[in-house]
C-alpha cells in the first residue's frame, strides 16, 4: 500500500465509524407500530441522537398527503385505502375502522400525543424522513404526494450507508 493511501485510511475509517445515530426502517402502516416508531424517533432526537426514518411499503402511508394517488386502476384503489396518517388502524382489533376510532378516543382520554403531532414533532426535532423510491413506483405515489417534511426519496444503498454508521438500527 502506498504511503498516501495509508494516510487516507483514518479519515475514511472515521467516516464509517459508528456514531450517535439511530436508523429505522418504517415498513408498517399500522397505528400501533407507527406510534412506537415516532415515539422512539422523537425520544432519540430529544436525547441528542441523529435520527433517520426510512419509510417503505405500508410505511409510506405515514408520510402521505391525503390527496388521491395512483394512475392505474390498482394504483388508484391503493390510493383510496392508503389515505394518510389519520387513516391508519391498529394491527389488532381494528374491526373495519372501529378499533382505530376506539384507540384514538382512548389515547386522547389518556393524554397521549396523537400520531400526526408526533410526526410534526419529529420533523421539528430534526428527524430525517426518507421515502423508498421503489415502493413509491409500485404504489404509484409521486414525490408531490408526500408531505413536505420528507427530505429525500432514496433506495436501499442510502439506507444501508446510514445504518452502517448507526449505534441503533430498527425495523418496524
Amino acid at each position: 500500500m502506498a504511503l498516501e493511501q495509508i494516510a487516507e485510511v483514518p479519515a475514511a475509517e472515521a467516516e464509517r465509524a459508528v456514531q450517535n445515530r439511530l436508523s429505522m426502517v418504517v415498513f408498517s402502516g399500522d397505528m400501533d407500530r407507527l406510534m412506537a416508531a415516532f415515539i422512539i424517533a422523537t425520544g432519540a432526537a430529544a436525547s441528542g441522537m441523529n435520527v433517520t426514518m426510512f419509510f417503505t411499503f405500508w410505511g409510506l402511508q405515514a408520510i402521505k398527503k391525503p390527496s388521491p394517488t395512483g394512475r392505474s386502476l390498482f394504483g388508484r384503489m391503493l390510493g383510496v385505502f392508503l389515505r394518510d396518517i389519520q387513516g391508519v388502524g391498529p394491527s389488532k382489533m381494528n374491526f373495519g375502522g372501529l378499533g382505530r376510532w376506539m384507540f384514538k378516543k382512548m389515547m386522547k382520554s389518556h393524554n397521549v400525543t396523537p400520531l400526526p403531532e408526533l410526526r410534526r414533532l419529529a420533523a421539528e426535532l430534526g428527524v430525517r424522513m426518507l421515502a423508498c423510491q421503489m415502493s413509491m413506483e409500485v404504489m404509484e405515489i409521486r414525490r408531490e404526494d408526500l408531505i413536505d417534511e420528507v427530505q429525500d426519496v432514496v433506495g436501499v444503498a442510502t439506507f444501508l450507508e446510514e445504518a452502517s454508521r448507526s449505534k441503533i438500527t430498527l425495523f418496524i
Partner: protein
Amino acid sequence: MELKPDLTLDLKGLLCPMPVVKINQAIKNVPVGGLIEAYATDPGVMADIPAWCRSTGNELVTIEKQDKVIRFVVRRLK
C-alpha cells in the same frame, strides 16, 4: 438549602415521549451550569429522566416522588 432553578416546568399529565422532549427543548433556554426544575405525573419519568441525563451528559441533581407528583432537578452541563 437547594439553589434556585433558572426555569420551572410543569409536565403534569404528559406521557412518553413528551417529558423528555420538553426537557430537551427547555434546557436550551438555561445557561450551562443552570438548573431546571420540573413536575411530572408520568411514572415512566422516574426511569426516563435519569436515562436522558446519562445519554445527554447532563446532571440529575434530584428526583423524588411525592404522592403522584414527581419533582426533579436537572443541571445543564453542556
